C-alpha cells in the first residue's frame, strides 16, 4: 500500500516539472506549451462540452466494445475448444489479427451510412481480435484435469463450452479485454479525428485547428482520465469475476 500511495506523488511532481518548463520558455512559445494553470482554467470552462463529448463517444465505444466482447467469446470458445476449427481459423487469425485496425477507419467511414455506424464498426474490429485470440487460446489450453472431469461427468459439447472452457478461458479473455479496451479508445478517437462533429477526439482536433492549445491539452488530459476510469472499471470487474483464480 505505501508503494501505491508513493506512486501518486508522481503526479504533483510531473505537474511541477510542467509548470517549471512552461515558466522558463520564451514568451512566444508559451501559447504552444500552455502552463498548468491555463490548462486547468480551460478544462474547467470546457467541462460541459467535454461531458457532452464523453456521452457521444461512449455511445460509440460501449456498443462497439460490448458487441466485440460478446462475439469474440461466443465464437472464440467453440473455435478454441475444437481442434479442427482452431486449425481452420489459424491462418485467418495470423493474417487478420495483426492488421492495425486504424487502417479500416477511412474505408468504414466511406462504406457505412452514418459516422456512428462506421465508428462502432472500427471499435468493434479493434476490440474483437484481442478478445477473440484470448478466448481461443484460453479454450485451447484448458488443463487436462478439467477436461477429464468434464468427460467423466458426461458433459456434451455445449455443456463443456459453457461450464468448463468458458471459465477456464476467462483469465485469457480478460487479458484480451484489457488490450481490446485500449484499442477501442485508440480507434474511437482516430475515427472522431476523421469524421465526427462531437466527441472527445473531435474536441481535441477542433481546438488544435484553432490553435487553442490550452483547451486541446485539457481535452487530452480529460480523455486520459476517461480511459483510466474505463480501465479501472474493467480491472474491478476482472477481480470480481476471477475470484477463484488465485
Amino acid at each position, binding site marked *: 500500500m505505501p508503494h501505491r500511495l508513493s506512486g501518486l506523488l508522481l503526479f504533483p511532481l510531473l505537474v511541477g516539472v510542467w509548470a517549471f518548463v512552461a515558466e522558463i520558455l520564451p514568451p512566444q512559445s508559451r501559447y504552444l506549451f500552455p502552463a498548468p494553470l491555463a490548462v486547468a482554467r480551460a478544462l474547467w470552462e470546457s467541462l460541459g462540452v467535454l461531458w457532452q463529448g464523453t456521452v457521444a463517444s461512449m455511445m460509440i465505444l460501449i456498443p462497439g466494445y460490448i458487441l466485440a466482447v460478446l462475439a469474440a467469446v461466443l465464437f472464440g470458445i467453440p473455435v478454441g475448444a475444437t481442434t479442427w476449427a482452431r486449425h481452420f481459423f489459424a491462418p485467418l487469425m495470423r493474417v487478420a489479427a495483426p492488421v492495425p485496425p486504424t487502417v479500416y477507419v477511412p474505408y468504414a467511414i466511406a462504406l457505412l451510412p452514418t459516422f456512428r455506424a462506421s465508428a462502432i464498426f472500427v471499435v468493434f474490429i479493434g476490440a474483437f481480435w484481442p478478445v477473440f485470440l484470448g478466448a481461443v487460446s484460453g479454450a485451447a489450453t484448458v488443463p487436462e*484435469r*478439467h477436461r*477429464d*472431469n468434464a*468427460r*467423466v*461427468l*458426461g458433459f456434451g459439447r455445449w455443456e463443456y463450452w459453457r*461450464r*468448463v472452457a468458458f*471459465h*477456464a478461458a*476467462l483469465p485469457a479473455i480478460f487479458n484480451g479485454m484489457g488490450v481490446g479496451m485500449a484499442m477501442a479508445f485508440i480507434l474511437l478517437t482516430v475515427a472522431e479525428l476523421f469524421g465526427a462533429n462531437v466527441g472527445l477526439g473531435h474536441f481535441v482536433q477542433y481546438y488544435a485547428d484553432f490553435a487553442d492549445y490550452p483547451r486541446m491539452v485539457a481535452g487530452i488530459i480529460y480523455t486520459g482520465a476517461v480511459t483510466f476510469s474505463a480501465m479501472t472499471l474493467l480491472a474491478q470487474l476482472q477481480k470480481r469475476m476471477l*475470484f*477463484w*483464480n*488465485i
Partner: protein
Amino acid sequence: MTTLRLADITFAYGDRVILEHLSLTVADGEFLVVLGASGGGKTTLLRLIAGLAAPTTGQIFFADEEVRAPSPQRGIVFQDYALFPWYSLRDNVALAVAKSEPRLSRRERRERAAEYLRAVGLGDAAAKYPHELSGGMRQRGALARTLALGSPLLLLDEPFGALDPHNRARLQNLLLEIWRAATPRRTVIFVTHDIDEALLLGDRIIALGSNPGRIIGEIKIDAPRPRSREDIITAENFRSYRAAIQACYCRRDDDEAVDGDGGGI
C-alpha cells in the same frame, strides 16, 4: 452384472510400454487395492478403466459392455483436487447430481448436492469455493461429487496421497463407512503406493511392478472389518500379508526398493 474385466491389456506411449499383458477381473462390491511404485502405470490403469484413454491392445469390459469412452458409470477421483475452481462445492456436486438424477429441478438438485456434502462432513462448507478449502476438504468434495454421480464403480487415484496423516486416516475411515453402508456395495478400485493403506482398505491387493507395469502378485486379505490400524502393524496375519507383498517385489530385480516399516514402496 457389473463385473469389471480387463482382458490382456497393453498400453504403450510411443516406444514406452507402460502396461503390459495385464488381465484382471474385479467382482461386484469388491474393494480392490492396486499397489505399486510411483510412475509404475497405476494412474494409467485407472485412466484406461475410466475410458479416458484407450488400451493399445486388449479390451476392457464393464457390465458386459466394452469400455470405449468415459461414463458416469465409472466415477473417478483424481490425485489432485479436481473440483472446478469456478464453482462452489454445492454447484460442483450438483453438476454430478444433474447427471445421475436428471429429472430433478434445479432446487432439488442443490438439495441433493447438500446431502452428499453432509455425508462427507462438508455440510457447512457447501457455499464455499475450492480455493477457500483445505486439501482434505477439497478431496472430500471430490469424493462427494463422484458419489453423487451414482457410479457403481469408483476409481480412486491416490486420493489421500497429499494429505497429512491425521486427515488421511479420517478420510480412509470415511471412505470405508460410505462403502460399507451402501447396498449394494459399490465396486472400488483404489490406487496407492502405501502398504499400510492397502492393508487397511483392501479385500484384495494387486501388486503392480513397473517398467513395464504388470501384475507381479495378488493377495487376498481375509481379515474382518473394521480393521484396526494397530493390528495392521503388529498382528500376525497382517505381518504375513505384508511379507507376501514385499516378497512380490523382492522376486523382481533390485530396481524396486521396498520399505517395510514406513509402508512405502
